[in-house]
């Protein structure tokens, strides 16, 4: 089982239409500083490219997707298909600024879970703890604010 590997690997990237990388790069640095191996596929990464990266790194314990430009929902339209085809067989974590506009809807997270996202986060500091929890395969998908 990959959980017993000495080093833990994650795939990190930004959604397909989104070029915001500052948080992405800081998160990568920070996870590395905490001992993770980070495969950072960076900005403008489609679901297909995430699946690709996963095929090269099946040891990854999660795919972590950032989205800031408000287009997360459209950018993840292919996620259900990819997951159904088993192309992304690990937890998917999503974080950032997930919809357009300044007034966010609390039900937003639901939409993403319906697409096959396992956890919606806003604070990257919660990533390690979330990764730990997902490892224990809690039966309920986890939501943090």
């Amino acid at each position, binding site marked *: 089982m990959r959980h017993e590997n000495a080093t833990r690997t994650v795939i990190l990237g930004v959604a397909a239409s989104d070029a915001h990388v500052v948080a992405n790069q800081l998160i990568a*640095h920070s996870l590395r500083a905490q001992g993770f191996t980070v495969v950072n596929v960076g900005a*403008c990464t489609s679901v297909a490219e995430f699946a690709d990266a996963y095929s090269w790194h099946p040891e990854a314990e999660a795919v972590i997707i950032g989205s800031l430009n*408000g*287009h997360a929902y459209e950018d993840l339209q292919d996620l259900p298909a990819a997951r159904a085809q088993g192309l992304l067989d690990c937890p998917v974590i999503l974080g950032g600024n997930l919809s357009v506009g*300044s007034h966010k809807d609390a039900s937003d997270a639901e939409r993403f879970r319906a697409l096959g996202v396992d956890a919606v986060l806003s604070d990257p500091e919660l990533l390690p703890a979330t990764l730990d929890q997902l490892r224990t395969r809690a039966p309920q998908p986890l939501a943090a604010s």
Partner: protein
Amino acid sequence: MNDAAPPPETSELPTLAESVAYVRELGKPTAAEVLHTARATGRVALQPRCGVGSHAQMMTLLRDLEQHARPDILTLTIDSHTRLKRFDNARAVLLRNSAELNGYPLVTHGWQRGRELNEAVAAPLEVRHGSPDARLLFETSVASGITSFEGGGISYNLPYSKAVPLSESLAAWRDVDALCGELAGRGLVVDRELFGTLTAVLVPPSISLAVSVLEAVAAAREGVRCISVAYPQGGHFEQDVAALRAIPLLAASYLPEGVEVHAVLHEFMGVFPKERSHAEDLILYGALVARLGGATKLITKTYLEAYGIPDTRANIDGLLASRANSPLLDFIALDEERVGSELDWILQEVAEIVEPVLATTDLHKEIEAAFAEGRLDIPFSASRYARSEVIPRRAPDGAIRYLSPGLLPFSDRTRRRNEESLATTGRSTGLGEMVKGLTSDVNHFLNVFGESPAAAS
């Protein structure tokens, strides 16, 4: 009118001659004319950002902004699918729910609707986007009678895409610039704003300005006649004022005569404070930077910046930014000595970065090579085609310096000065420490206002 639906068929673009005639008949000044007048009268022209997916709502938004905020120039901000030529996605979201687009998909709506927008308001329009290859968007803009277009082969590539080679984007933007040259020949001067803002966060002034100098030289060679050099407010007053004041000096050094160059300030583009009153303090601060730096134009922010695309009310509420033109603030004096020393520093660094590149014969090739080798570089590049080995940090006084200049061809003197100014910031003793420090610098204004960095929403 079904406002969301794109026109049934994509229709032929009009000829350039037809578009030039259209602009003439429109009966409003071009952006270049507005900028010229602003500078001549000592005003800072004001421009809010705005763009929504629906055509009808875009009309309303522009009209509301014009009526209530009386901006000098209005914006069409383009959605990020269109920016990346994901036109199918833009169309899909437009049909599904236009509110989910983060900008106006002009190519999808088409130039006739662009003209409708243009005719709806008295201020000239600028298209702001972030497209490595903006040719179709530019042609649609020109056909819409839009007289200002943002971007450049470096500045609209590296921050905005991952895998577009610089040779491609530079070539695409050469076409845009050449078309501007042709339009100028036909009597229509299109203002070309260069996106010196780059990745917006902790951008050292000399990197922003160096990239703009290179893009400006490239644009001028294609016949562009009006260039706006945009500089992103970094957060340190004297440094930002000096950067704005550097722009006319750089133009005099590196650009041919006959090109009109304007300094433009982009109000702080990094992590914005969340509390309204803090955001407003920062907006006013930006307005004062623009005023004292002698900017021709100020691109404003709203108090909702930290949250997402602002609603119309927030965007109308340009109260703080418009203070840039208050006749009552002439009493403000500056630490001119400090501004002067920042200015010297900036001019020196820019010279060290651009002069080797400008000395070569094939500018585009050299730009590409220099980025590949790190002799040109930007921090936080979204693109693979810059190395991002430059590491910026804030000095204790908030000024942005080079913790590491990466492979930039800096002189020893320049390196030493940067090192000295960061002496107490402490070389990183480990990756964790460095990331912490960098994050804290990114969150500079949260620290100033005592806000916690937890994400807004």
